[in-house]
C-alpha cells in the first residue's frame, strides 16, 4: 500500500510519532527500564529474581487498580472510589472466608462474591455518573465515602487474618514458578481479549467526543456504565492481590491507592481527558511507582525524607514522560 511507503520515508520525528501512536506506552517502558537500572546501581540485589518477584506481588494490586482506572478514563470519566471498592472487597472476602471455614470452597466462594461486589460498586458508580449525570470526580468521591462506610461496618477494625490457604497460594509457587507470574499471565490474556472487544472501542469513542458518539447513535450512557462496571471488576481483582500480599483485612487500605492509580494511568501515557489510553502503559505506570518507592529505599534516604523524595521523583518521571510525548507528537 502506498501510505506505508510514505511512512517509512518520513522524517525521524514522524517515525517516532507513528511508533508512539502504535505503542503509546513506550516512554513508560523506557522509564521502567531506567528505574530498574538505577535500582540495580544502588543495590545489585534488587534486580535478583526474588526481589523482582516480591516487587511484582506487592504492586500487583496497584497494577490491577491502575488498569481498572484506565477503563473509566478511556471514556473521559474518572473513579475516585476504586480504592474504596478495593477495601470493601478486601474486608468482605476476608470475613466470608473466615466465616466459611477457610477451606478451598470458602476461598472460591468468597472470591466469586467479591467479583460480584466489585461489579455492583462499579454499576452504582456508573448509574450515578452516567445516568444521573453527576460530576464524576465529586460523585465517585461521595461513593468512595459510602463504600468505606460499608467496609467499616463489615470489619470495624483492621487485622482479621485471611486463611493461610489464600495467602500461601498467592505468595507461593506453582509448578516451580511463583504464583504471581501466573497472575500476570492471566492478566495479560485478559487484557488482550478485552482490547479486542467492541466495548473498549466504544469507550474510547465516547472519551474522544461524547457528543459525536451520541450523534453517531452509540448508547453513551450504557457504555459509560459498562466502563465503570469493568473498573469495579478490576478493583475486585486488585483486592484479591492485596489480600494475598497483606494476608489480612483492612477497611481503609485502598483509600490512599486511588490517586496512585490515577497517577499510574497518566505515567503510563494515557490522556486523562479520555479517548487515548493504554492498559499496558498503566501496568508500567504502576510499576514505575513501585520502583520509585524501592529506589528511594535503596538510596538510603532517611525515613523522614522518603515522602519528599518519592514525590519529587514521581514529578520528575511525569515531566520526562510528558516532554517525550510532546516532542514526538509535535
Amino acid at each position, binding site marked *: *500500500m502506498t*501510505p*506505508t511507503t*510514505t511512512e517509512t520515508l518520513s522524517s525521524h520525528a514522524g517515525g517516532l510519532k507513528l511508533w508512539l*501512536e502504535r505503542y503509546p506506552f513506550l516512554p513508560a517502558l523506557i522509564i521502567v527500564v531506567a528505574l530498574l537500572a538505577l535500582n540495580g546501581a544502588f543495590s545489585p540485589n534488587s534486580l535478583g529474581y526474588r526481589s523482582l518477584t516480591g516487587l511484582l506481588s506487592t504492586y500487583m494490586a496497584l497494577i490491577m487498580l491502575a488498569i481498572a482506572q484506565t477503563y473509566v478514563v478511556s471514556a473521559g470519566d474518572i473513579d475516585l472510589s476504586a480504592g474504596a471498592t478495593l477495601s470493601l472487597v478486601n474486608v468482605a472476602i476476608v470475613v466470608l472466608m473466615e466465616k466459611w471455614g477457610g477451606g478451598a470452597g470458602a476461598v472460591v466462594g468468597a472470591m466469586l462474591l467479591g467479583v460480584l461486589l466489585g461489579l455492583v460498586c462499579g454499576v452504582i458508580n456508573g448509574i450515578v455518573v452516567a445516568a444521573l449525570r453527576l460530576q464524576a470526580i465529586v460523585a465517585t468521591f461521595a461513593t468512595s465515602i459510602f463504600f468505606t462506610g460499608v467496609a467499616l461496618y463489615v470489619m470495624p477494625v483492621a487485622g482479621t487474618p485471611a486463611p493461610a490457604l489464600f495467602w500461601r497460594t498467592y505468595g507461593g509457587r506453582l509448578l516451580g514458578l511463583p504464583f504471581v507470574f501466573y497472575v500476570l499471565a492471566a492478566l495479560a490474556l485478559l487484557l488482550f*481479549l478485552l482490547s*479486542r*472487544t*467492541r*466495548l473498549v*472501542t*466504544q469507550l*474510547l*469513542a465516547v472519551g*474522544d*467526543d461524547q*457528543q*459525536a*458518539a*451520541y*450523534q*453517531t*447513535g*452509540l*448508547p453513551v450512557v450504557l457504555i459509560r456504565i459498562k466502563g465503570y462496571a469493568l473498573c469495579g471488576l478490576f478493583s475486585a481483582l486488585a483486592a484479591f492481590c492485596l489480600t494475598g500480599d497483606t494476608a489480612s483485612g483492612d477497611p481503609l487500605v485502598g483509600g490512599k491507592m486511588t490517586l496512585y492509580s490515577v497517577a499510574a494511568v497518566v505515567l503510563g501515557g494515557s490522556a486523562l481527558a479520555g*479517548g*487515548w489510553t493504554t492498559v499496558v502503559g498503566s501496568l508500567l505506570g504502576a510499576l514505575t511507582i513501585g520502583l520509585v518507592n524501592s529506589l528511594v529505599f535503596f538510596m538510603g534516604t532517611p525515613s523522614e525524607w522518603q515522602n519528599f523524595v518519592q514525590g519529587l521523583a514521581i514529578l520528575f518521571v511525569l515531566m520526562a514522560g510528558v516532554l517525550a510525548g510532546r516532542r514526538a507528537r509535535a
Partner: protein
Amino acid sequence: MSKLKLNGVSKAYGATLALRRGDLEIAAGEVHVLMGSNGSGKSTLCKIIAGSVRPDGGEILIDGQPVTISGPQSARAQGIGIFYQELSLAGNRSVEENICLAMLPVKARMFIDRAALKARAARYIDLFTGVFGDGFAAETLVGNLRADQRQLVEIMKALASEAPILIFDEPTSALDRAQVDRFFDILRRLKRDGRGIIFISHRMDEITAIGDRVTIIRDGETIKTLNLNETDPAAVIRLMVGGAGDMPASRSSAPAVASFATGAAMTVDKLSGAGFRNVSFEVAKGEILGLGGLHGQGQSAMLRAIFGAGAITSGGIRIGGDHFDARSPRDAIRRGCAYVSGDRGRDGVIVGRPIIENVTPIHYLRDRLMIAHPRSLKEKAMPALAAMHTKFASLLHPINSLSGGNQQKVIIARWLIDRPDVLLLDDPTKGIDLSAKADLFALIRQLAADGLGILLYSSEDAELLGNANRILVFNGGSVTRELTGEDRTRYNLYQAAYEAA
C-alpha cells in the same frame, strides 16, 4: 408517496425560537436542497430528523406512517443517516473504525470482527479512491487527517448507514473540485437507487448541479418548495431574503459617514492565519466596519487572531500609528484592543462570581491594579453599567442571576472603564433578547461617535445592515466583496455570501 414528511415541526431553546414551523417533503429518488440564511433553522431541522434534537411540536412521517424519533439510535433504526456539519468523528480512532462506529461488526457477540470491519469500511473508502490525497489510509487516525479528508470520512460514515433517507448538512465546505465531483457521482447513483436525500450547501453552482427541488427556510419557517429547473438563483435568493430584499438598508439608522475623518483607528495589511488569508482593511476612528458572510468564513478566526487568541502567519496590524502584534489577549488588552464574543460562557462570563468582579478585570489589568478599595471600584463600575442600562439588584449578586442580555451588558461594561482604541465584536448579540440588542447597538454607536474604531461581525445580516458604515463580505477565509453606501442591501449581501468561493 413521500419518503419523509415533516408537518409544522418546531423547536425553541429557552426564549429563542430556532425553528418556528418546519414543513418538508422528501420523495424517493430526489436530492432535496434546503436553503436559508445563517440561523434560519436548517441545521435544527436536520438534527430533529436525525434525532439529536428533540422537537417541541409537529409530526414526522416516514413512508406515510407517523413516527417518533427519540434519539440518534432510533433515527438510525428507522432508516435515517446523517452527515453532521460539525462532524461526528472520534479523532483517536482510525478511519475504518469511524466509518463503522455506529454498527461495529462483532463475533461471539463481544469481540470486534476486524476482517468484517475492514471489508465494510473498504467498500466506502474505495468510492473515493484517487481523490482523498496524501496521507490517507484506512488505518490512519482521523485526528491526523486534513479538514477535507475528515469531511470525506464523515461522508463515508453517513453512506455506511445505508439508510433510505440521507441528510447531508454542508458536506462540501472543505472539499476540492475533484472530491465534490466524485461525491456528486455517488449521490446520483443513490438517487437512482431510490434514496431520499436532503442536501445543504452554500454554493449556488453545487445546488443547481445536484439538486432536484429546493425548499427555502426563512426565520425558522418553511417559505416555499420549488423545482430547481423551473427557477433561477436570483429568484431563490429573493425568496430567502423576503419582501425587503431589494430595499437598501435603513440608512437613517446607520451613523453619518462624514464624522470619522480623523484618521485610522486600525489598519490591517494582508493578514493571514488559520482560517483566513490575505485580509486587508482600514477602520477609521468612529467607524463601524461590518464583517459579513456565512458562518465560519474566517470572520471570528480573524478577530480572535487580532486579539492575540489565534495564530497569525503573515501580514501586519497597526493601531493608531503603532505596530500591533499582540501575542496574547493580555498583551492586546494592555495595548488598547477590546474583544467581546457572543460565546459568553467560553469567552466572557466569570461564572458564579459577583457582578462587580465581572465588570472590573480589565480595569485591574490596564491599571496594573493590585489592591483596590471596593468603594472606589464601585464608583468606576456604576457609570459603566449605567451606560448599558444594565438591570441588576446588587453588584455583589452572582452574574448567573442575570439574563443572557444583561450578562452581555456586564461583559461590555468592563471595557468602558478604561476606553480601548479598537473594539472587536464577534457576533455579540448571539442568544440575547431584542430590547437588550437595541441597548447594545445604541451604545456601540455612541462608542463609535466617541472615536473608537469598531469591527462588528454578526451572524444576523439585519444587524450589519442597520449599524455598519461599510461591510466586508467574507467567503472561504478572504474578503470577496466590500459593500458601501447604497450597495448595502440585503440582496447584495446574500449574493456576495452565496457566490461560489
